[in-house]
């Protein structure tokens, strides 16, 4: 073994993670090579120093604040305050407070949705089924949509041609998100692009882009209105995941399956920052 090969294995040797054969080869080299021996000795000193690091005392309030959150059910949503406590950090709460001051009381409220149109009711129903399935089985949920709305898999290029505009996802996805699939759906309102992606944890997130606002998508689920990256965004809870809608340029973006409000904000920020209008 030469010095370079020994250097590549030095951590593994020092940590007793080499096979006995390899370890013997490294030992033999180090016995003969003073520079590699010095290198190894420095790793040993660094480890000794690391072992002396002092543990910081854990603040008691971590558990005290965590406990009530754990006791709350995750399946049902009763009050916006509950929703906020689970999904928003103290920074967000400060932000929400600012929003309330700026726009007055009433920003945070339930939407009373009145559904009169048949197709709206139909849409709400299909989406509630989709949303219920989504958090547990995104693939099954997808089949529901494709069946109901004559959906078909496509590519971003084809979607651009059919829709007459480039879907936002064509400008790239937020960091750590990877494109999974693209679909075209014939919704009652318009032909709609649906892009499926996976976040870092491998969870599916659906991105819908549509020409008109679709409050009925979320049926009578309670929503909160907040500012994500300074953009008015409606957020609702689906199981233990979030769905959010906001306006991007002339169209509306809806994402379903975000882990928390931070992830929603990442999407809002990303699509805004990559907007062609921004570069003008």
């Amino acid at each position: 073994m030469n010095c370079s090969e020994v250097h590549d294995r030095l951590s593994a040797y020092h940590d007793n993670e080499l096979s006995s054969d390899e370890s013997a080869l490294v030992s033999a080299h180090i016995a003969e090579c003073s520079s590699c021996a010095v290198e190894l000795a420095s790793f040993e000193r660094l480890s000794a120093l690391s072992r002396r690091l002092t543990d910081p005392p854990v603040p008691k309030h971590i558990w005290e604040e965590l406990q009530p959150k754990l006791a709350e059910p995750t399946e049902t949503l009763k009050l916006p305050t509950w929703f906020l406590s689970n999904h928003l950090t103290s920074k967000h709460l400060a932000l929400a407070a600012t929003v309330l001051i700026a726009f007055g009381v009433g920003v945070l409220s339930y939407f009373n949705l009145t559904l009169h149109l048949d197709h709206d009711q139909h849409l709400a129903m299909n989406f509630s089924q989709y949303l219920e399935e989504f958090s547990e089985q995104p693939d099954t949920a997808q089949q529901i949509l494709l069946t109901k709305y004559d959906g078909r898999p496509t590519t971003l290029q084809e979607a651009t041609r059919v829709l007459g505009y480039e879907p936002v996802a064509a400008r790239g996805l937020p960091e750590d998100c990877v494109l999974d699939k693209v679909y075209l759906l014939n919704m009652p309102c318009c032909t709609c692009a649906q892009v499926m992606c996976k976040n870092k944890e491998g969870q599916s997130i659906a991105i819908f882009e549509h020409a008109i606002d679709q409050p009925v998508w979320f049926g009578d689920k309670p929503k909160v209105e907040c500012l994500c990256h300074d953009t008015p965004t409606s957020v609702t809870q689906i199981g233990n995941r979030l769905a959010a809608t906001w306006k991007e340029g002339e169209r509306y973006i809806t994402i379903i399956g975000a882990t928390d409000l931070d992830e929603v904000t990442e999407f809002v920020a990303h699509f805004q920052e990559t907007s062609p209008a921004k570069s003008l």
Partner: protein
Amino acid sequence: MKSASTRRIEPLAASNSGEGMLAWVDMQEAAAVAEACQQGDPVAQRRLYDVSHQNVYRLIVRMVGLQDAADVTQQAFLQAFRKINQFSGRSQIGTWIYRVAVNEALQHLRKRKRRHFEALEHEPMDRSAASRENMDDKELLEQALAQLDPELRSAFLLREVEGLSYREIADALEIPEGTVGSRLNRARLELKQHLSEQGWGS
């Protein structure tokens, strides 16, 4: 010709506490607690927290800085309990907790960078020393760690402070086991360089 080599099985050299992973009395209890947590048992949740919070907190303090550590630790446990059904039992519950904690910390760092909430890198853990001249070696190491790339930092901390094996680190960081050694090599070389510049070992 590849010989049938056996891995040396030796106790872990690292870890502050000398307890290796987390302070479980026995692994059967760990498995039972994990299962009870999956049923939402509050007593088991408390037990898991009690056993792991010191390890998780010290890791997160060094990942995100003291100021945000409590929030990120709380979020990490909240995620761990919410997603505990995703824990398959193939890995140890301790490794899995570390994975959630590292993910939360890295996610927090990315968001902080993106939002430009804080323009400065986080302060080293111990700020009591006002000048480098007064810093002892431990403080120098805390400072060097704070400047290390977060991916390298997490590998180094899991090895040197938490005492994880390479297989456990690979599991916690979701990287191939073969990558762990090279990450630790880079981490150690960069830390040594930073420390030497501050006069360590001279």
